[in-house]
């Protein structure tokens, strides 16, 4: 099958190949933009908005396929952290004195483990969101921030059934149904902002240093033990000064968000205004820093 093409005006460009400046001028004359240059931040945001359906579609498809192969399917999303909480509760319930535990230990532990799970998944999967999708990156052109965003959205979808179980556990351990549950919405929205920032930073760092994925399990373990999940903050000591652990807990973003969620669900753990301010600050700052940091390497993704 032969196709006839209208003869273009070029003759033998090999002989009269235009110079550097000619080509750049020709491109300028016809308004052809330069490829591969990083779009301005505002254009980038607009492109990202244009792919919002793709972002959500990707998150939903991944979420569904993730658990399809197991017999219990999506139930594992809840079972995994529940079993996790049970193991920690068993071990630390035996190991630690009762005085170091929160009043409603079971509900506090479940909230802590579930909310931590959300953070850990965003960090771990976020770090892999560029390197693990090289097929997609090498075949289609779209703003790469779609990938860490989709990772976080996927985790938000997984968080919904976890929240339901969390509230059931709270009711079962004697917590009342109350209006304060509505605080879950701003608390988790802020945490999602924070986690998106973390996912974007981790995604870009992994591009520069692959070995980071090896260190992430240790990092998450460290954050886990420093987030007051199975013990309560020691607070002020006898002299009125704060212990190092209490200070770390106070400014650990993950502990901040866990405290906000506990404040909404558990009576007697109400979060002070100070904690809310920290939650807003960490959410906004990490999101903005993470977004700009990720965007600044946009042209590098896909080089590996």
């Amino acid at each position, binding site marked *: *099958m032969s196709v006839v093409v209208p003869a273009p005006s070029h003759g033998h460009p*090999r002989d009269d*190949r235009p110079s550097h400046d000619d080509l*750049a001028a020709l491109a300028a004359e016809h308004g052809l933009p330069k490829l591969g240059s990083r779009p301005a931040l505002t254009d980038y945001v607009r492109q990202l908005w244009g792919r919002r359906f793709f972002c959500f579609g990707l998150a939903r498809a991944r979420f569904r396929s993730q658990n399809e192969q197991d017999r219990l399917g999506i139930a594992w999303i809840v079972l995994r952290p529940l079993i996790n909480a049970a193991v920690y509760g068993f071990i630390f319930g035996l190991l630690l004195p009762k005085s170091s535990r929160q009043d409603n230990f079971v509900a506090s532990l479940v909230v802590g483990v579930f909310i931590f799970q959300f953070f850990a998944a965003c960090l771990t999967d976020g770090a892999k969101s560029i390197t693990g999708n090289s097929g997609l990156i*090498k*075949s289609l052109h779209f703003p790469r921030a779609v990938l860490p965003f989709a990772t976080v959205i996927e985790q938000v979808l997984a968080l919904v059934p976890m929240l339901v179980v969390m509230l059931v556990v709270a009711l079962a351990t004697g917590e009342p149904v109350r209006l304060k549950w509505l605080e879950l919405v701003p608390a988790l929205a802020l945490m999602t902002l924070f986690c998106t920032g973390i996912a974007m930073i981790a995604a870009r760092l992994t591009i520069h240093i692959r070995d980071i994925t090896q260190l992430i399990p240790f990092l998450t373990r460290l954050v886990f033990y420093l987030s007051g999940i199975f013990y309560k903050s020691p607070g002020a000591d006898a002299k009125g000064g704060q212990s190092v652990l209490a200070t770390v807990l106070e400014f650990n973003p993950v502990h901040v968000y866990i405290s906000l969620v506990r404040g909404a669900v558990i009576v007697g753990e109400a979060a002070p205004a100070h904690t809310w301010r920290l939650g807003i600050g960490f959410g906004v700052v990490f999101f903005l820093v993470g977004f700009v940091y990720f965007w600044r390497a946009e*042209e590098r993704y896909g080089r590996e």
Partner: protein
Amino acid sequence: MSEPASPPVTDTAALLPPPVAARGPRPTVIVDDLHVNYTVYATGRPAKNESTKLLRRAVNMRRARKIHALKGISFTAHQGEAIGVIGRNGSGKSTLLRAIAGLTPADQGAIYADSDPTLLGVNAALINELSGERNVVLGGLAMGLTPDQVREKYDDIVDFAGIGEFIELPMRTYSAGMGARLRFAIAASATHRILLVDEALAVGDADFQRRSERRISELRDAAGTVFLVSHSLKVIQDTCQRTLWIDAGILRLDGPSAEVIAAYNASVR
């Protein structure tokens, strides 16, 4: 491209662009002295020094090696052109296409392009764990279509791919040919102003090849530019009027397909 000597003009006429006919076909892709390097991590050739070789092995240090895949390519493509790209394996053809598609960044030089060029490749993987159906939807969304537009085109895409009930199965169960057909069907469903095709025609049976060749010429007629990488010189000769011959990262020849293919054949022999 030089401007014709223009007659004296009035003030209002000076504000208008020169007549289109005088400017020839509009350029859609301008590649200006393009260099692309790859950094690959490989254990590579054994180290010369035995002691460092052992050390390397002990810490499992990977050496970074630079591969200069493209070494200064320049050309201009115009509206309505179908351009074949030929060369040996590893000469840089696919790298050139990926660079034009904006998927592999240039190390030096520049590429100017009209709109986002779309690459159709055999290697282009969608998401293997997902079913063909979900890949059709996601592929459409990734190209920037809205969910409504995807729904509209869905049946056409599935029909074009012609892989039957496999559309419900995960893509990892597909044969190489079926995967490539589905990818081609998805990418070809949107109208691209610049379409890059990498060996997509080599897969699939005769019937699919015929349909995809027809689709490529349709896309080109829709005022687009098509690049086609193929080892089948016959496909290039039949589909493309102009051909680029890439050899070891350098543009050896650029001209009418018949001439370039003849020169290429002469060199291979």
